[in-house]
């Protein structure tokens, strides 16, 4: 199993896309945090968490990394040599899940680094000080949300082998459908909204009262990963490999 995980990590290190995604995370999260701090929008009880919430906007890119880890194999046909080396497909997919989790943690750390490297000095000039325990908790939650997003990406990839299809589905769901449901919610009031996957993920770094608590969001997100991944793995085991 260790070999399979190392191989998956090597797959990510030997192409350019993950590097591009990491750079995009730095830019997007950096801009989001700068905009939030600059607009003086840190009003909630935990300013550290508000900063993390702003930086979390790029976690969709960690999800795309997870999607790529699976769908690249089908797009370029490398799934054939991969399954030749390791015919136990569930082990290959599990290795991808673990590798994506590790990559998600790394990208999450990058986002956290950028977020607080911008926020701490900026607020310090206004005489505000960040840091200490609240910051550590916020960083931990932010990193966790990136790792979870990457896991969801792998699960989506195992279900939808088409790269374009999987990315479009992820964007459509997390950036269009769920925000739309929340928007309509003003009209229809739908109490199940906090249990949607994107909302569960957001709960990790949000101070919004309408969302679940962070631990509940974490557990629910893991449950989503488990169900999607199990379904995708069953499909992959039953289908022919192509």
């Amino acid at each position: 199993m260790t070999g399979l995980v190392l191989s998956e990590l090597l797959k990510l290190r030997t192409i350019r896309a993950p590097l591009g995604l990491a750079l995009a995370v730095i830019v997007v999260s950096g801009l989001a945090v700068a905009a939030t701090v600059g607009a003086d929008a840190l009003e909630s009880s935990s300013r550290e968490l508000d900063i993390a919430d702003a930086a979390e906007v790029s976690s969709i890119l960690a999800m795309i990394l997870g999607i790529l880890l699976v769908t690249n194999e089908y797009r370029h046909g490398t799934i054939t040599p991969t399954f030749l080396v390791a015919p136990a497909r569930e082990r290959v997919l599990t290795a991808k899940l673990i590798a994506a989790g590790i990559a998600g943690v790394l990208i999450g750390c990058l986002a956290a680094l950028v977020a607080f490297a911008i926020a701490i000095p900026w607020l310090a000039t206004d005489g505000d000080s960040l840091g200490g325990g609240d910051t550590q908790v916020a960083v931990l939650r932010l990193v966790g949300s990136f790792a979870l997003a990457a896991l969801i990406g792998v699960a989506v990839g195992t279900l939808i082998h088409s790269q374009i299809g999987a990315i479009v589905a992820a964007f459509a769901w997390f950036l269009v459908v769920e925000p739309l449901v929340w928007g309509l919610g003003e009209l229809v009031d739908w109490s199940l909204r906090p249990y949607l996957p994107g909302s569960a993920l957001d709960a990790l770094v949000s101070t919004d009262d309408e969302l679940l608590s962070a631990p509940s969001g974490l557990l629910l997100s893991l449950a989503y990963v488990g169900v999607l991944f199990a379904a995708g793995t069953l499909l992959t085991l039953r289908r022919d490999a192509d």
Partner: protein
Amino acid sequence: MIEVSNLTKRFGRVLAVEDASFSAQPGRVTGFLGPNGAGKTTTLRAIVGLLQPTSGSATVLGKPYRALDQPSRCVGAVLETSNFHPGRSGRNHLRVLAVAAGIPRSRAEDVLKLVELDDAAGRRVRGYSLGMRQRLALAGALLGEPDVLVLDEPANGLDPAGIRWLRDLLRSAAAEGRTVLVSSHVLGEVSQLADDVVIINRGRLVTQSTVAEVTAGGDRTRVRSPDVTRLREAVAAAGLVDREAGTDALVVEAAPARVGELAAAKGIVLHELVAEKATLEEAFLELVGGGG
């Protein structure tokens, strides 16, 4: 050792392979022949566990591929030429496979040298020619020093020197006692390379035998003479079958000695007297029923 028993694979309404049984033996190169769409690739993919047979089975070294303990050390397979991420270098492609298989990374350098790709190893596969991709795929198959090689059209995209190199490589693999199963639709290639042939057409096995048996046929002689009419009479009088081959030549179903003696007895001048062997191509076309 590869054994295929009553293998059937159905894709929806299409029966790609129907009840095929054959084997490939260690120490021999087995050519797997058939026209395009005959079911060669389907059969090979079933052998290495990428497809689930509808019925029947395929085993390698006595086990289904998926039950092998360390498949990369048992079987090396080349199935398509394009199984690479275009942005990854050839060397890294091999390292990814080696790490997954628990094979030392340094082995990547060994096989790169073996397939004569070490100069291009650091370049992205995007810039590789078809021939280079074939070599890289072959390098991947050789990583684990497997006892069994399964190759689908490995000569595609190789230049004549590359084909010769491939032939030598596969012959020496067989000489070391490995089992080599290699599919092709280019018959000339196979007749120079294979010991045994398995011929498949429209999903059904046509024959399995040695190349020598398939090409043996009866004695056949090509004979040229300025007096072809009299020669023809003499051949017919001796009860032999012939057919015209141009204005001054015949092909007679008999050994050259017999044809020569007949001509001498009648005092007929001959300009050419050559033994003809059926080529694998002729035998193949006969077996699969013409154009394929």
